[in-house]
């Protein structure tokens, strides 16, 4: 029996209930305050404090015990609430809801400086009621007879590029990467078995050079918020989790955790830019309370019905279009295959015979099939004797496409076999990895040896400049997933999303990878990564309202560092 608890569905596949406001109110009313596996702090018990924030919000507290308080918002009527507090060195975190409302506060107080940061949180603030909203208020603890401090906690990029393994006091283990100033990337080792990483809009706030506040909301999924204060040197955290899980039960607890520092990847802001603002170019921050850029892939790329998709594909099928921003830096089209005749024999799948009639024109047929199928293809010689090419399989029922890497030195081939449509969405690609050999005159293939899956890339971050103005970074976040990050105009990491992936080793420093933009735009990206030339070549496979597109990919790479993370994925 497996000791790893794999879920029935991964987070991006769960159909979370659209909770009503009334349902949320009822669930919140049933709890007195956050639970905790660790003893709650009594640091505030018996005390009163007033927090004044720059936006005008004031919170006046009286703490009668370690879990009961009264709070007055903006000098209004005081209400009783349950709370939980935990301390980390000179910083205290307390969290409570406001009874009778769907609101609450997570408050971080630096007891040395009396600076305070308040996360006002609420439900039913977005079309999906369960998604926790937050507004950050910066301020201080009022000290009678003393002037207000002028310093404040503030957003920062000083923690961008770090990664941690965390184990909470309730046994929950996660890996969390902070590769951008807007988003973070987390792997749920305990809750979900650690197969995939996921992304959520995040806040990074500097308390001092050791201590930071981090928060994220699992937007587009459960809507749960995780917030904690972390000590970057000691790898310790105190935090709070608030939201509704897959079963719609309320999760509201404070936690203490310990972890391990996993490394630091590169930052690309100009020197001196410490991230006190976020460079959003010509996009304004949404003006709604708590507004911030949130990537909502399913709103941008709605699911299509099979008939609608078929109609769109029948109307438009684009093969290696010339104008393609993803291929501005692609390798030259290779003539290596022109005139060659060969068979690609895959283990447990097909044997496909090929005639490469011209540089971009081939014929293929299944072994034993009489008729040939003509296709347009593109190919690139990514390393001496290693050729990648891609083509559609015309007439195949699922609009099958092949992205193929052939190593003529070893007579080995690997095909990423894409098909369009999954049980979840018609306009979403699926993929199978096919290993095999090249049969060709003058070439004797190995009997047993094949290309192999590899973990050698896991933890690495590589930037990809596809064409002027278009650069992303891949973070190879787990052995089975990959995240992509878009840079802001000042070089900060910006929006981020993640999908299933796999990595095949072709040669030393030469890897054949794919990623699937599942529950997103449905694209299958396949790239052959050459870490010696720092260049890739690849094939993108996508279908949507604009039809089907098989396109080339080509980008210049830069190594952005690596997290030491592989040991957490060993079985």
């Amino acid at each position, binding site marked *: 029996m497996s000791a790893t608890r794999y879920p029935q569905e991964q987070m991006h596949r769960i159909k979370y209930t659209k909770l009503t406001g009334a349902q949320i109110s009822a669930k919140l009313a049933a709890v007195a305050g956050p639970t905790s596996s660790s003893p709650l702090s009594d640091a505030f018990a018996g005390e009163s404090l007033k927090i004044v924030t720059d936006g005008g919000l004031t919170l006046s507290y009286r703490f009668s015990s370690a879990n009961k308080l009264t709070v007055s918002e903006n000098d209004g009527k005081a209400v009783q609430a349950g709370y939980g507090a935990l301390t980390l060195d000179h910083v205290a975190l307390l969290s409570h809801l406001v009874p009778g409302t769907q609101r609450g506060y997570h408050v971080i107080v630096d007891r040395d400086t009396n600076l305070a940061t308040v996360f006002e949180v609420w439900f039913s603030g977005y079309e999906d009621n369960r998604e926790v909203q937050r507004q950050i208020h910066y301020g201080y603890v009022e000290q009678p007879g003393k002037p207000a401090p002028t310093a404040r906690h503030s957003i920062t990029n000083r923690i961008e590029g770090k990664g941690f393994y965390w184990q909470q006091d309730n046994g929950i283990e996660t890996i969390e990467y902070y590769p951008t100033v807007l988003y973070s990337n987390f792997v749920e080792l305990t809750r979900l078995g650690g197969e995939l990483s996921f992304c959520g809009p995040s806040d990074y706030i500097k308390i001092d050079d050791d201590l930071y506040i981090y928060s994220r909301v699992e937007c587009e999924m459960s809507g749960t918020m995780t917030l904690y204060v972390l000590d970057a040197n000691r790898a310790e955290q105190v935090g709070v989790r608030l939201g509704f899980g897959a079963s719609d039960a309320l999760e509201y607890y404070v936690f203490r955790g310990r972890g391990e520092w996993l490394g630091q990847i590169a930052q690309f802001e100009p020197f001196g830019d410490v991230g006190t603002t976020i460079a959003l*170019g010509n996009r304004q921050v949404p003006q709604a309370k708590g507004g911030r850029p949130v990537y909502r892939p399913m709103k*941008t790329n709605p699911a299509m019905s099979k008939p609608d998709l078929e109609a769109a594909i029948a109307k438009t099928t684009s093969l290696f279009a010339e104008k393609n921003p993803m291929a501005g830096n692609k390798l030259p089209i290779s003539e290596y295959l022109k005139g060659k005749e060969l068979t690609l024999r895959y283990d447990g799948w097909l044997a496909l015979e090929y005639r490469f009639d011209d540089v971009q024109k081939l014929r293929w047929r299944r072994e034993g099939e009489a008729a040939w199928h003509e296709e347009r293809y593109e190919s690139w010689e990514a390393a001496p004797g290693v050729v990648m090419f891609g083509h559609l399989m015309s007439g195949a029922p699922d609009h099958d496409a092949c992205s193929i890497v052939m190593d003529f030195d070893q007579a080995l081939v690997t095909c990423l076999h894409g098909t369009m449509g999954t049980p979840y969405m018609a306009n979403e690609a699926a993929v199978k990895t096919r290993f095999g050999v090249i049969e060709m005159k003058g070439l004797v293939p190995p009997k047993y040896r094949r290309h192999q899956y590899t973990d050698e890339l896991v933890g690495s971050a590589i930037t990809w400049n596809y064409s002027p103005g278009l650069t992303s970074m891949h973070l190879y976040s787990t052995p089975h997933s990959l995240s992509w990050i878009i840079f802001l105009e000042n070089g900060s990491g910006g929006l981020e999303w993640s999908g299933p992936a796999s990595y095949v080793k072709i040669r030393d420093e030469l890897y054949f990878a794919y990623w699937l933009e599942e529950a997103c735009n449905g694209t299958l990206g396949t790239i052959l990564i050459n870490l010696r030339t720092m260049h890739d070549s690849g094939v993108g496979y996508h279908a949507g309202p604009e039809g089907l597109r098989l396109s080339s990919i080509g980008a210049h790479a830069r190594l952005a560092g690596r997290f030491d993370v592989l040991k957490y994925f060993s079985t």
Partner: protein
Amino acid sequence: MKSTVNSARRGFLWKAGAALSAPLALVAASGDARAAGTHDAARARLTELEDVNAIRELMRRYVRHVNAGAHDEAAALFAEPARTDTRFARAFAADPAGGEDAIEIAASGTTATGCLHCTAEIETPIEPVTPLVAMARAQGGGVLKRTDRGTLEAAYVKRDGTWKIERITFRAA
């Protein structure tokens, strides 16, 4: 008949708070000269100066909004906001080497033209829109940038006593 008001300094739009205090040189047509000294001429000249200052302030606000990425606010300065796209430039800045800026008020007093020397940060959308480009656009990217020297050339119209931008283009030098 029209009159041209030139700034005594180059780049007058870039001097914040100078709308009413900047010295102006009025280049008057001969007909205006004959009327000089009369009460009507003085009133006309005052109106003209007020119009020029109003247009200068209008342009300051336009540049400020565009530079801040506040395109809805910038569009609201146009006579027909709904038909206006202000996104042809990301930002404008003073061009120290540019020529004299000018505003011309038409004799009717209800229309005007302007010419502002500046550098413009031009953004060209990356096409076609792939998933990665769409994601970049969601955070203010997905564009190619370049900086050109040239002139912002505008036509203005006075509606209900308020100057509005009728159209505006950037002409590279």
